[in-house]
């Protein structure tokens, strides 16, 4: 592929490892961004972002306009969802969602009316006059999440502002096949830069660096052009050599600053904040036009895709509609995301989400995923390829043997699941799958542990309560008995004489009773004797 001759404006550092897979990018970045006809129904996944599931606020049968809020945040770590087009809500039910599990989850199903009519948009008149909180609130209300792949709610990422000195705009897009960020920059560089400007206004004295791989010469030209026109000379271009996975957050930081994000720390701890170009574009739209995030640029590609390219696709558009609209052949394998980090969809009736940057409609044998895994030969190629300087081989052994604590000792959770190790593995071992298995098992175990801890607390609290109730009851009885005794004693003291007389009377009565009972006992004995005689 063509490489840009542009010399980076900031020094570029090295990252360990990395691979150079075939790029397959020219297939989808040769045509302009297009639109497809609307689907018959949109399936909007309420858990389409990192964090909590959004809460639906519309009812079945309700008519909605494009951009209208259809689901609210559940707490701060969540996102608003807006109607991607005008139409009617026809169901709120469980549908297969875009998730590697292929499980069902709550979705809002919207039937478009074809008018695509916007609701009234509340755009802010002057961004310059808005204070930090107002800008953040606008980003929050417009449902903006990170469009790089993790869908992390942007307002949370932007919240921390102490000590942040550099904003990095991630345009590296290192994964093969995907070209949506590239095309977005080629056609909308101005808007992206304006979005970056809005973000930079949230901080004091911040440097802006755009990190981009040198395999996007047109996008680099477009950025330069836009920068000149907008007179934003403060924005620096950092052009990094093409190598997968230079677009990973930690990897791009290392490439552009030479610093490694330490284990268990965030980029913000180093004074850095990173946003994807798509996110910048969305923030620009949210603030200048008041448009919520209702669609995104998606790369449709793969050998079976008949019209590969980049398309603006409303959220919730089912993948089978995309296959039909591009007159593509039924894909052998349907991948959401890139070939390295994406996952296979169980079937095509899955709505796209905010994180969907690419759909690969692959032909038979295109992705080479069918090779049988052979035993590990301890060649160490994975170690050389690991961009996080881990020991993939050791992680593999421990994950395979369910020795999760040992895997954690080898920093399993620093693995970014880029797949470079599995790519170079001569034995075709699905290494990343082993790591994912280990990670998800460890996470589940932690949750179970917490639950057990809670159950123990409740059990102990209950035991304690039962003890206490028993003790209190005993105490009450004791007190009552004492009170009775005391009352009796006091009564006795007051009227000792009367008591003496009564006692005497009682004695007499007792004697009489005793005599009577003696007599009756004698009678009884007699009759008993008779009986026993009779028996004999």
């Amino acid at each position: 592929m063509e490489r840009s001759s542009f010399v980076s404006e900031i020094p570029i550092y090295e990252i360990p490892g990395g691979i150079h897979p075939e790029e397959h990018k020219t297939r989808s970045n040769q045509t302009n961004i297009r639109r497809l006809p609307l689907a018959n129904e949109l399936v909007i996944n309420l858990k389409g972002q990192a964090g909590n599931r959004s809460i639906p606020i519309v009812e079945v049968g309700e008519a909605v306009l494009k951009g209208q809020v259809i689901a609210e945040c559940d707490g701060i770590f969540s996102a608003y969802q807006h109607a991607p087009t005008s139409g009617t809500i026809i169901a709120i039910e469980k549908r297969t969602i875009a998730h590697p599990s292929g499980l069902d989850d709550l979705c809002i199903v919207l039937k478009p009316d074809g008018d695509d009519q916007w609701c009234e948009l509340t755009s802010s008149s002057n961004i310059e006059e808005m204070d930090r909180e107002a800008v953040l609130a606008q980003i929050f209300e417009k449902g903006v999440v990170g469009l790089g792949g993790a869908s992390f709610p942007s307002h949370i990422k932007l919240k921390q502002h102490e000590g942040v000195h550099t904003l990095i705009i991630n345009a590296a897009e290192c994964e093969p096949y995907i070209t949506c960020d590239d095309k977005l920059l080629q056609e909308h560089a101005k808007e992206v830069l304006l979005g970056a400007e809005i973000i930079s206004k949230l901080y004091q004295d911040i440097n802006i660096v755009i990190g981009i791989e040198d395999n996007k010469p047109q996008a680099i030209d477009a950025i330069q052009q836009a920068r000149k026109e907008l007179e934003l000379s403060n924005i620096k271009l950092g052009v990094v050599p093409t190598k997968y996975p230079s677009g990973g957050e930690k990897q791009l930081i290392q490439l552009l600053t030479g610093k490694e994000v330490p284990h268990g720390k965030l980029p913000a701890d180093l004074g850095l904040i990173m946003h994807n170009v798509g996110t910048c574009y969305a923030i620009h739209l949210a603030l200048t036009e008041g448009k919520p995030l209702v669609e995104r640029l998606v790369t449709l590609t793969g050998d079976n895709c008949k019209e590969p390219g980049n398309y603006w696709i409303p959220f919730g558009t089912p993948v089978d509609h995309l296959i039909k609209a591009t007159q593509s052949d039924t894909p052998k394998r349907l991948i959401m995301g890139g070939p390295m980090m994406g996952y296979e969809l169980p079937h095509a009736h899955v709505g796209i989400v905010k994180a969907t940057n690419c759909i690969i409609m692959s032909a038979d044998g295109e992705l080479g995923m069918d090779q049988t895994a052979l035993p590990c030969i301890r060649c160490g190629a994975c170690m050389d390829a690991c961009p996080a300087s881990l020991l993939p081989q050791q992680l593999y052994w421990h994950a395979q043997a369910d020795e999760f604590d040992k895997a954690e000792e080898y920093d399993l959770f620093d693995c970014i699941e880029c797949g470079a190790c599995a790519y170079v593995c001569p034995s075709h071992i699905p290494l990343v799958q082993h790591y994912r298995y280990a990670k998800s098992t460890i996470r589940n175990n932690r949750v179970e542990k917490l639950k057990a801890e809670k159950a123990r607390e409740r059990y102990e609290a209950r035991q304690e309560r039962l003890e206490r109730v028993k003790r209190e009851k005993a105490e009450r009885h004791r007190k009552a008995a004492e009170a009775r005794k005391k009352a009796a004693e006091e009564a006795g003291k007051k009227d000792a004489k009367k008591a003496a007389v009564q006692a005497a009377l009682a004695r007499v009565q007792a004697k009489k009773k005793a005599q009577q009972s003696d007599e009756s006992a004698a009678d009884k004995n007699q009759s008993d004797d008779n009986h026993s005689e009779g028996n004999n």
Partner: protein
Amino acid sequence: MDLITAVIILAVLGLVFGGLLGFASIKFKVDGDPIVEQIDEILPQTQCGQCGYPGCKPYAEAIANGDEINKCPPGGEAGVKALADLLGREVIPLDEERGEEKPPSVAYIREDECIGCTKCIQACPVDAILGAPKLMHTVIIDECTGCDLCVEPCPVDCIDMVELPQTISSWKWQQPDQMIPVKELEAS
């Protein structure tokens, strides 16, 4: 003379160290048996009593006193293995008499049929059932350990044990197949 000096020095040393040890044994005394705590950590805390003890803690104490480690079906094989690792004992199969390992489930009260007798509330070891006399009861799903203990006392049989469905948050990746590929050769 040398002999006496040596004896005195040794005696003094003995006294000093003895005193130090005695002091340490009082000062750093460990309350309770730490091994019981560690065993209790491993047990699943369902408090179901399938082991024959009235809860997980009593069973932990019993294990520390030498009882078998295979009496906890909710802990499953993994639990037995963890206990064996901790205590340096042999891994043994689960005691079938105690029941079998079941998928995680919770109690569910069919609320229309509940007569409000509070019997299940009294049986629940973790106070996960809410209700009052002559009023409907219900299970707090997040707190229920799936111990089964409320099913038996219910006079109208309106409690079911329902398996927890898999959700996005409880889902985990499967371990890739580790089978050695087998090729069938044609018989010659």
